[in-house]
Each structure stands twice: as structure tokens, then as C-alpha cells.
């Protein structure tokens, strides 16, 4: 039971009652009075920034799901609807898309800070590993979310991305088909990516963010680089107020920055994916440009080394860094191999990324093609929203009647008010059964016989006997038989 002498939280009857029921004051105090060895610093703001961006992604993502439909024939239309028509839709979608890039940037900064400061050392193995898993999950979110708008760049970038799976020995082809839901990308791919992006990965993210924060509080902040990671000796300062103010200030900066960028440079939507387009030049998002360039260097049987073995070994070393490096030494200049290797990989990724953009810029045909694709995106954005008019609407399906006799029969069907009870296009209503598929049950002569002499049940339901000339009867029967 918390004591009642707290001075920094106003007392009132309700809050007091709530505290006795929940103990929220104690929890808040535990959260805010976390001791930071060596005091608050700007270097520690990235974790909070990531947490905020994650929450922003959840909120904007839930909002996008309100109008989005995950299927190949509706995904693009619904994203266009959000982007072009719905109030603030473009803003929220842009914040979501740029938020993903922001998370990647902050992850890089957060990881670099942690690594340079040696903050993963001393009883922090699980904290570091949960962070590595969070990095993978976030990259998975970026990859799965990129496909969902189903425009040209999303489709072709993901086609390449999923193709990489087939490099895995033995099970590669099967793995690719598992991810795609078949040999080709299609509506099942969207379902799978949507499921991963909206249910599976977020569930894992919530779980791992929770354990990451828990493990962080269990081990305690590591403090500055000259601090002992296990038994901190430096004077501490509580998380509140100075670190809170720094974190909140940084979050505020992120909000304003993200909002302004989204407002003045809204993310575009390109034309709908056209799988039969053989000319499209796919390029991934900037954070996948490094790996994209890296793939160019590997051909034939050796590619398994570049695509699978090298990344797996580097990833493994990275993941198990706290187990491989037991020393409590944290100063970067005393850890030249670790810091050098980290910097090397970082420089390598930056170099590959730069090379990828450079290659595209100097190759005139590629540059022209990419520019054309950008222009197509801009042109599509300028065009007004085109609502979906799929053939599922009865009128559209009926207009396509190929048989002229059946087309005339359709007019008779409407003139005779058959549609008043049997529905437009024979879809059926509460008053009378549907006629679609009637030819499977009755032959045309049988249909004609029923029309001329309805059964007692039909008569009881109000079925009249239409007065038609013989050729009109043939036309009506032809139409009814054509309803499928």
C-alpha cells in the first residue's frame, strides 16, 4: 500500500480511490524514478522515439484498415480511395509510410548508440537479442506492408523480394510458394502479406517490445561509456524530469517533422499492378537498396554464399555479440575489433546503397525508364478517383449478353416485371427464388412449360402466366437459360 505523503501528485478523492484499487501511483513512480547512472543524456532518446513511432504506426495502420480491402481486385482501388478522396487519408497514409522509414532510421541510430556505448554488456544478453528480433520484425513489417497498395512498384519489388526465398537450398522453391500462396503473385499473396502485416508481426512486436522494455528495466540503464555495466558507481539521476523532457521533446520533433513532410510531400500511389508488364523496372525502398545492390555481385552456384551464408554469419555474430564479447570494457577505443567490424558493416551497407543509386543515375536507359515510371505515378495521382465497377453488379453482367435472343429475352424479363420479384438479373428476392442457374435444373422446354402452366406452389407465391407471342417466349426462355 503506497504511503499518502506523496507531494508531487495532486490528491483528490477519486484519484485516491483509484490508487487504492490499482496502485497506479506506485507504478508511475517506479516508471518515472528509474535511476540513470551518470544522469540524463540526449544519446538515450532513440528508444522512446521508436516506441512513439510504433504507436503512431499502430494508430495510422488501424485507420488505414478501416477502408482497405486485402484482395487483388480491390486493394489498389481502396488505397486510391483513401489517398484521393477520404479526408486526411493521404496525410495518414503518408505518415504511415514515412513512419516506416523513420523507424528504420531510428533503429539504426538506436543500435549504433547501443553498440558504440557497449550498452549491451553485462547481464544484458536477452535485452540485446530481443532488440535484434525487433529489428527483424520491423524489417518484416516494412516488407509486407510495401506490397499492400498493389501498385506497379509494390508488385514488382515484392516479386523480386519473394524470389530471393528460392535461393534457400532444398526448400527454396517450396518456401517461395508458401510466401506467395502459389507459384505466382496474386490475390493470395495479398492475403498472406496482410495477415502477416496486421496480425502476426504486430502480435510478435507487442510481445517483444514488452519484453524489451521489461528486460531493460530489469538490467537497468547502462549509463555512459566509462560506467561499470553490472555495478554502476556513478551518481544517478531519475528518469523524470530531465530525461522525460528530452524524450518528449524528441517525440515532439518527430511528430512535427513527420507531419510536415507528409503534408508537403504526400506519398504517391502508382497505377495498379499489371503482372503482364514485362518492361517495368523494379526498385525497392531505400532501406533495401543495400541488399538489392549486394545481390548483383552473386551469380550461379556461388550466390548461396552471398545471399545466404554471409548474411547468416554476420547476423549470427551480431545476434550473439553479448555472448561472444564477455569483457566489461565499454569504451569504443578499447574495443577496436568489435567497433571496427560494426563500422565496417555499416560503411558497407551505406556504400552499397550509394552504389545502387549511382548505378541507376549513370545508366541513361535505366534513368530514363525510372523517370518514366515516376511520371506515370504522378499522372495517376493527378487523375480523379475512379470507383470500382466490377462485373459483380447484375447490370454489368447482363449487358455482356452475347446471345441476341437472350438479350431480347432480358427486355421481356423486365417488361413483364419478372425482376420485380425475381430480382434484377434473376438474383432472387424475398418474394421469389433466384433464377440464376435454373438451366442446371430444367431444360428450356421444361422452363417454357413452367411459364405457361405454373405449379400450384408458384401460383401461391403470386407467379402470373405471362402472355407472350411464341418468339417472345423463346427469347425469354433463352434469357433464363443464360442466367449462370
Amino acid at each position: 500500500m503506497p504511503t499518502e505523503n506523496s507531494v508531487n501528485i495532486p490528491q483528490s478523492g477519486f484519484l485516491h480511490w483509484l490508487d487504492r484499487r490499482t496502485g497506479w501511483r506506485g507504478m508511475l513512480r517506479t516508471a518515472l524514478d528509474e535511476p540513470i547512472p551518470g544522469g540524463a543524456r540526449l544519446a538515450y532518446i532513440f528508444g522512446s522515439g521508436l516506441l512513439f513511432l510504433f504507436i503512431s504506426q499502430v494508430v495510422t495502420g488501424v485507420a488505414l484498415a478501416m477502408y482497405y480491402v486485402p484482395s487483388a481486385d480491390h486493394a489498389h482501388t481502396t488505397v486510391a480511395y483513401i489517398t484521393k478522396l477520404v479526408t486526411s487519408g493521404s496525410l495518414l497514409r503518408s505518415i504511415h509510410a514515412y513512419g516506416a522509414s523513420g523507424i528504420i532510421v531510428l533503429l539504426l541510430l538506436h543500435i549504433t548508440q547501443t553498440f558504440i556505448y557497449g550498452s549491451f554488456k553485462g547481464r544484458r544478453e536477452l535485452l540485446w537479442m530481443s532488440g535484434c528480433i525487433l529489428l527483424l520484425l520491423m524489417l518484416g513489417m516494412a516488407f509486407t506492408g510495401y506490397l499492400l497498395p498493389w501498385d506497379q512498384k509494390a508488385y514488382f519489388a515484392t516479386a523480386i523480394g519473394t524470389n530471393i526465398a528460392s535461393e534457400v537450398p532444398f526448400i527454396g522453391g517450396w518456401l517461395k510458394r508458401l510466401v506467395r500462396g502459389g507459384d505466382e503473385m496474386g490475390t493470395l499473396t495479398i492475403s498472406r502479406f496482410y495477415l502477416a502485416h496486421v496480425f502476426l508481426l504486430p502480435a510478435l512486436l507487442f510481445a517483444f517490445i514488452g519484453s524489451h522494455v521489461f528486460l531493460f528495466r530489469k538490467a537497468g540503464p547502462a549509463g555512459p561509456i566509462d560506467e561499470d555495466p553490472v555495478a554502476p558507481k556513478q551518481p544517478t539521476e531519475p528518469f523524470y524530469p530531465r530525461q522525460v523532457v528530452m524524450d518528449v521533446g524528441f517525440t515532439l520533433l518527430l511528430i512535427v517533422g513527420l507531419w510536415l513532410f507528409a503534408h508537403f510531400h504526400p506519398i504517391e500511389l502508382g497505377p495498379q499492378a499489371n503482372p503482364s508488364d514485362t518492361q517495368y523496372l523494379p526498385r525497392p525502398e531505400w532501406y533495401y537498396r543495400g541488399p538489392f545492390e549486394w545481390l548483383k555481385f552473386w551469380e550461379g552456384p556461388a550466390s548461396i554464399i552471398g545471399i545466404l551464408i554471409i548474411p547468416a554469419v554476420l547476423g549470427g555474430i551480431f545476434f550473439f555479440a553479448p555472448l561472444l564479447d564477455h569483457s566489461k570494457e565499454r569504451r569504443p577505443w578499447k574495443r577496436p575489433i568489435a567497433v571496427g567490424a560494426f563500422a565496417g558493416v555499416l560503411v558497407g551497407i551505406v556504400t552499397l546503397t550509394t552504389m545502387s543509386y549511382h548505378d541507376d543515375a549513370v545508366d541513361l536507359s535505366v534513368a530514363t525508364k525510372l523517370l518514366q515510371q515516376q511520371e506515370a505515378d504522378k499522372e495517376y495521382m493527378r487523375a480523379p478517383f475512379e470507383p470500382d465497377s466490377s462485373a459483380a453488379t447484375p447490370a454489368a453482367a447482363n449487358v455482356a449478353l452475347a446471345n441476341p435472343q437472350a438479350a431480347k429475352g432480358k427486355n421481356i424479363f423486365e417488361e413483364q416485371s419478372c425482376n420485380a420479384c425475381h430480382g434484377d438479373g434473376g438474383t432472387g428476392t424475398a418474394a421469389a427464388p433466384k433464377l440464376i442457374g435454373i438451366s442446371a435444373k430444367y431444360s428450356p422446354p421444361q422452363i417454357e412449360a413452367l411459364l405457361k402452366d405454373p405449379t400450384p406452389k408458384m401460383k401461391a407465391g403470386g407467379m402470373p402466366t405471362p402472355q407472350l407471342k411464341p418468339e417472345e417466349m423463346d427469347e425469354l426462355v433463352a434469357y433464363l437459360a443464360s442466367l449462370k
Partner: protein
Amino acid sequence: MSEANLPPCGPDGAPVTDPGRRSFLAALLSIGAATMTAILSLPLMRYVLYPLEARTTEIQWSDVGPVSELQPGSAPVKRLIQIEQRDGWRKLVSEKAVYVVQDSAGKLRVLSPICPHLGCSVGWQEASNHFVCPCHGGTFAEDGTRISGPPRRAMDELETKIEDGMLKVHYQYFQQLVPTRQVLS
């Protein structure tokens, strides 16, 4: 947890800030956070409420045909019009039949073929020079006025306008089984 169990606060073990300043800062942060949340929820609210605002009562006009081609003279002319309904990001197109008639002053009028009795579609019978409902035998004159049968009123006239030589109609449904024309939607 008691105050004594809390970790030391400053280098000398004393709180970094005095309680008054601390609670002032807490209030400032809470108010700031609340304001930010409110500002951020604005676009979110507008996004969620969009379909409510977008559902305007704007009249949808369907093309019946060019006036020059629509000179029915005595016999009413049947025309199929397409009415477009917007359902969020979908467009639903359905085909409806209407009858174009000409009154004594030469003005074009458009009649709904839906029988005001029970909703069957009334057809023009050239042989009898009447509109006849195939369901329950209601008959109407060529201008749509009721002649005989169960219907309680004349055929319903639809709102029209002429734009650039094109006759346009506003397709609507009307209440059945009542003696006066009452718009349903």
C-alpha cells in the same frame, strides 16, 4: 512502496528539483500531451467521419436520350437508363426502364414504370393503347393517369431536366399502396 525505498535522486542524494517545480512540470507535460493528442486526433476523426460528410443529397441525373430523338407523339417510348449508386469506393450501376411521354403542350415527361399498386413494372400495350400492369391488371392512360384496377393513383412522374439537348431524369422510388405520390429515396 514507501518514499524511503525510492532510489537516490541527485548526486547529493537530494531531489533534483523541489516538489513545487516537479508538480508544475508534471502538469505542463500532461497538458502538453493532452493538447498534442487532441490535435493529432483531429485528422483521424475527420478520416473516420468522411463517409458521413460525403453522403450528400446531391441529385443523380441519368441520361434518357437526346431530346431530338425523343418525340414520342402519341405512343409512349420505353427507354433504359443507367442509374449509378456510389457505395464507398464502389460504383453500382443498374439499369432501369422508364417511359417517355409527351403532354398536349409538347413537353416531354418521364414516367416510372413501377406500378403504384404493388411494384410490378407496368408495360405499354400498343394493341389497347394503355399501360397495363401484368401482375394485377391495373390500367393507365398514355399520360399515366389511372383508368382501372387496384392502383390507387396515376403512374409516378419522375423529375426531369434538359441539359445540352439531353433529357435527364432523376430516378426515384415511391411509396406504394397510397393515393398520393410520396418519395421513398
